[in-house]
């Protein structure tokens, strides 16, 4: 896995008129994992989007080295297309062979249009896309939503393997997420 690093310095986030959090700093080296916890609406998803570079922070800076893979509530798969073709699109964009579908138990769903998949199956499909992308930095926003307990264990295993191979994982979730040597940051400690 390529060298990767992500560091944020003195971040603040404002949505509308409210400052959600301020003074948040973090730094992750290869192999490290971090879980961001906090109540609904406290800014976990906003933090993930700021770290991904999709949202401008109200204050502070983010430095990243290495490609970023993101999972959020939107699977970015064409609803009317069969799952196999929808994943093929991303495989072509990422220029990879493996689509990770087998590992997530999607092999028999490849000819089902994405719009007929359940919430959990769509989440699995998004994870398959993430695995195929092979980005060293994973930003996972509520990765366990809609997954049954077997799939949740599977996702924890996959994230553990990713970190063991030298990747970084940042997980925003209100559910417990078991990873070896994972740090936790309570977003409420930084709320403004």
């Amino acid at each position, binding site marked *: 896995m390529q060298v990767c690093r992500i560091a944020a310095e003195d971040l603040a986030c404002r949505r509308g008129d409210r400052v959600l959090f301020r003074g948040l700093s973090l730094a992750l080296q290869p192999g490290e994992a971090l879980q961001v916890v906090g109540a609904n609406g406290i800014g976990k998803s906003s933090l993930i989007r700021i770290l991904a*570079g999709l*949202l401008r922070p109200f204050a502070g800076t983010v430095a990243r080295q290495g490609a970023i893979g993101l999972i*959020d509530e939107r699977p970015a798969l*064409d609803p009317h297309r069969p799952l196999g073709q929808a994943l093929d699109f991303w495989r072509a*964009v990422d220029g990879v062979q493996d689509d990770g579908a087998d590992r997530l138990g999607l092999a028999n769903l490849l000819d089902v249009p994405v719009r007929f998949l359940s919430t959990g199956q769509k989440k699995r499909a998004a994870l398959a896309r993430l695995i195929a992308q092979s980005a060293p930095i994973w930003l996972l926003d509520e990765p366990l939503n809609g997954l049954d307990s077997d799939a949740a264990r599977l996702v924890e295993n996959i994230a553990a393997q990713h970190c063991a191979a030298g990747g970084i994982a940042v997980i925003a979730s209100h559910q417990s997420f078991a990873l070896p040597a994972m740090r936790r940051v309570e977003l409420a400690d930084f709320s403004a």
Partner: protein
Amino acid sequence: MSVLASLLRRDLGLLLLGGRRGGTVLPLLFFLAVAMLFPFAIGPDAALLARTGGGVIWVAALLAAILPLDRLIEPDLELGFFDQWALRGISEEWVALVRVLAHWLSFGPPLMLASLPAAALLGLDGAALRTVELGLLAGTPGLAALGVTVAALTAGLRGGAALAGLLVIPLAVPLLIFGAGSLSAGGESGIALTCAVSLVLVAIAPFAAGAAIRSARG
């Protein structure tokens, strides 16, 4: 390059083959329906029809180009495609440029084909039909660029689809004036001016649409 080819293949699949609501067929049928209605509305005066027919084809083409606006940008924004592209370093400008090309391919050439039966319905002669076809060839890329720009600007707004139609019509006036004007006076220069307007719109569209998409992400 292969990334852009993948994007174009996907866009064409969505826009041309009707992956999302209708594809090319609906705007085309709409275009023909307008061309067919017009003789009923103004009566069977062949001379009057032939004189106004070219302009009718242009208005029908403009209206047909408005129909697919709501599925040009908004669905991809909602489904998170633009976020995933941004993470992979594929800029919104490239995506918008590819989309202009796909949008044009999905309605420009089909409209030019449909203009043949429309011209027959309106009783246009060969010379007028040739001018209309050349004008559409020059003007439809501009309409496609305008459509993608306005679709990006109105993505995520409430009532965005209606607003998009309302915004496209005044902005398309130069294309309409020069394109339809080439039928009455100095055909060649009218088509050249249509070309010029088209080029300006195509040149601006990727940057305007890209900026709009980034700001819609918020």
